[in-house]
């Protein structure tokens, strides 16, 4: 007998500070006013999405020593926006990116535990690491971590936060007026943690939230990142756009779970994906091309190239060929605070690849950048997109998608109105929420305090 079709998980990423957002579109609204977040969240909830996702950056990006000014700049505080969104939604999961380098576990744990209480069990934490001194200049702890220590600190940070979440079992608040017992356990919240990164002890002040612990997301793609996800995360945000790359990644990370005593269902693979919809596939292709041209202007293409080349290329024509000169080796001095810069571990090799690609297809700088910066993209009529997404998931290239619309805040509306009903017709996406918490949406069990061993790789 065939297995029943896998159910898709769908989430929405509020477009942040990168060139996915087409801010020049007349329909583009504020990226900072609460009404934009509320609109976006309500659409995601109307479409029965699993969660809304916010990225974070702790310093404005700079290029050539100047604040980057071509894309959306500025964003709100993650916890504050998510807590406010809890007031205007009922079911939608609320996922925030919080850095484990420039925060302290006690504070972050009480913020996530609070968010879980105030949202009725809908909090999720995308644990990210950072090691650059550039970002550190905004913090009193200052400094930064050697790159090889970042996952070690992240693991220690998460481990410590779990101990704090687990320091309350969840049944301590008795609040019995007659007997005068408020707290059923005089030592509730007691914890002590000592390792190379944290030496802290005391009483955690937030009782256990509805989900026990927030859902944990992880986004790194390195071997250490995959291992961290396999040991500790509930979902991994992947970057693998094609079916084959997606399947390989999926098999790899799911294959790592057994060594931590976990089953494949305990870690969801969710790539980020953009989309362009039209009445016909042809119309959608035209729209997609138009969107890419607006996302990557000539100036944006040159700035993007500078990030890899690590030198000023402002004299080059974006509609001309790639520079003859090679990238400047060493630490990137041109672009700072930009995650994509870190992707180029070997700039010379990447530049060589790009040259070959441009030569083979006769691409200008701008055309090349449009190609190399594209993400997993679903383009077509709603029927085509629904079918393609479903095929991708049924082929075990992912468990669903985190959609990144190109418009704020209305970019999800059309998808919700046209594609979601088709996925529901196919029987691969929920028509109603089946439970109140994000763990319910994702099919994840509530962890028992102290009942599950922490699966931290050493």
């Amino acid at each position, binding site marked *: 007998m065939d297995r029943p079709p896998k159910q898709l998980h769908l989430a929405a990423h509020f477009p942040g500070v990168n060139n996915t957002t087409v801010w020049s579109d007349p329909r583009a609204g504020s990226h900072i006013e*609460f009404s934009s977040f509320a609109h976006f969240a309500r659409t995601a909830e109307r479409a029965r999405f699993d969660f809304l996702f916010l990225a974070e950056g702790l310093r404005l990006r700079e290029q050539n020593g100047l604040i980057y000014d071509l894309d959306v*700049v500025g964003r709100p505080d993650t916890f504050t926006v998510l807590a406010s969104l809890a007031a205007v939604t009922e079911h939608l999961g609320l996922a925030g990116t919080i850095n484990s380098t420039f925060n302290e576990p006690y504070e972050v744990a009480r913020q996530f535990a609070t968010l879980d209480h105030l949202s009725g069990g809908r909090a999720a934490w995308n644990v990210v690491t950072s090691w650059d001194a550039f970002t550190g200049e905004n913090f009193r702890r200052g400094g930064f971590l050697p790159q090889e220590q970042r996952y070690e600190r992240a693991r220690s940070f998460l481990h410590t936060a779990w101990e704090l979440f687990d320091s309350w079992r969840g049944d301590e608040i008795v609040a019995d007026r007659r007997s005068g017992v408020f*707290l059923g356990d005089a030592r509730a919240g007691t914890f002590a943690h000592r390792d190379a990164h944290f030496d802290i002890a005391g009483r955690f002040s937030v009782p256990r939230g509805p989900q026990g612990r927030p859902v944990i997301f992880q986004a790194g793609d390195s071997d250490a990142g995959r291992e961290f996800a396999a040991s500790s995360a509930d979902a991994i945000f992947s970057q693998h756009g094609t079916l084959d790359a997606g399947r390989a990644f999926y098999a790899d990370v799911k294959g790592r779970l057994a060594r931590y005593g976990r089953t494949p269902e305990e870690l969801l693979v969710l790539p980020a994906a953009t989309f362009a919809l039209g009445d016909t596939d042809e119309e959608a292709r035209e729209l997609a091309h138009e969107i890419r041209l607006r996302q990557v202007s000539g100036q944006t293409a040159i700035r993007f190239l500078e990030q890899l080349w690590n030198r000023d290329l402002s004299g080059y024509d974006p509609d001309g060929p790639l520079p003859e000169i090679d990238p400047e080796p060493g630490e990137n001095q041109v672009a700072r605070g930009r995650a994509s810069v870190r992707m180029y571990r070997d700039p010379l090799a990447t530049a060589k690849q790009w040259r070959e690609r441009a030569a083979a297809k006769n691409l200008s700088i701008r055309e090349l950048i449009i190609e190399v910066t594209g993400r997993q993209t679903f383009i077509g009529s709603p029927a085509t997109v629904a079918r393609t997404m479903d095929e991708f998931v049924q082929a075990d290239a992912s468990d669903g998608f985190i959609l990144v619309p190109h418009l704020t805040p209305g970019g999800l509306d059309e998808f919700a109105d046209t594609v979601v009903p088709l996925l529901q017709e196919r029987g691969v996406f929920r028509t109603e929420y089946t439970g109140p918490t994000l763990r319910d949406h994702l099919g994840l069990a509530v962890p028992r305090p102290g009942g599950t061993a922490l699966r931290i790789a050493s």
Partner: protein
Amino acid sequence: MPDTSPSMHLAVALDAAGWHPAAWREPTARPAELFTAGYWADLVAEAERGRLDLVTIEDSLGLQSTHPTQPPDTRTDQVRGRLDAVLIAARVAPLTSHIGLVPSVVVTHTEPFHIAKAIATLDYVSGGRAGVQVRVSARPDEAAHFGRRESPDLRNAAAVGELFDEAADYVEVVRRLWDSWEDDAEIRDVATGRFVDRDRVHHIDFTGRWFSVKGPSITPRPPQGQPLVAALAHSGPPHRLIGRSADLGFVTPADPARARAVVAEIRAEQAAAGRAGQSVHILADLVVFLDATGARARARQARLDELAGGPWTSDAAVFAGTPTELADLLQEWQEAGLSGFRLRPATLPYDLEQVTRSLVPELSRRGAFRREYAAGTLRGLLGLPRPANRYATA
């Protein structure tokens, strides 16, 4: 133009089931709901029905204790556990439309960069109603939760002074970050392809003894420009912090004479800091038990004291009586130079409802308090201008 501003500003301080340690045992208390959004939403909605200027929400980075400055005890007959105050304020912001929201934050163990963007964002989600009450922490248990520093010895006056000096630097960093974007920095200039005018976004380059923060903020300048900064003070060093750094001071005089002295002390600190020309509101804190008769209010206080195991006193003066008597007292005290009062309901929601449903109508009848909200922002309610941006050159 007629002066529509009220002559008295009124705030309420929200904490758990109320300020009396046995408050949670009152028949009208909702102790099992202290960790739910609905509880806080109802309290703030009630305060807004009373047209109050603002609510504050207490917080700390450790578990409550019988004595607020001491590490947690092992008592089980009082409320223990609390939610993050900034998130509570954010959670209720979309459900209210006029009242100011002023959560507490501990500045001793947190990052000014994080708090600056959190309060700026609270200002966005509330449409210009955000403030923050800054607190220092000298509790050794709270220091141990962070493991980064020793807590100061409170018997050492210099160490206490330093704690407040650090708080003043913290506020300075936060204020600079709020100004680090000029109001019109976002230009969305399609012709040149620029989203932001980088000349109107500024590094703050703060370097001091405790912080060096580069900036700019990741969050654009909030609707009020500068959300309100408040602090509670009982003595010299925090009075100085209010004079140097705050828009709003909560003070705890025992009587009008002492109130007059405290106001004078803060005004002197304000002048010494070169802020004599700025409006700094001073509100006196009072714990209140309110009932239809004074005898009932005092009987309730006695009953709660008995449940708590003895007479309870507070850092602020405690009032037990009728709303009319309280209105008399507030008007008398205000002549000491106070802008108004922050009432700490001894029990929630009961004493809050006495404030909003009896005290406020009485004060309004006397022309001493607003009948309608007449401003959209917290600064507006307090009659404070929207400040110019220190980095704007035009």
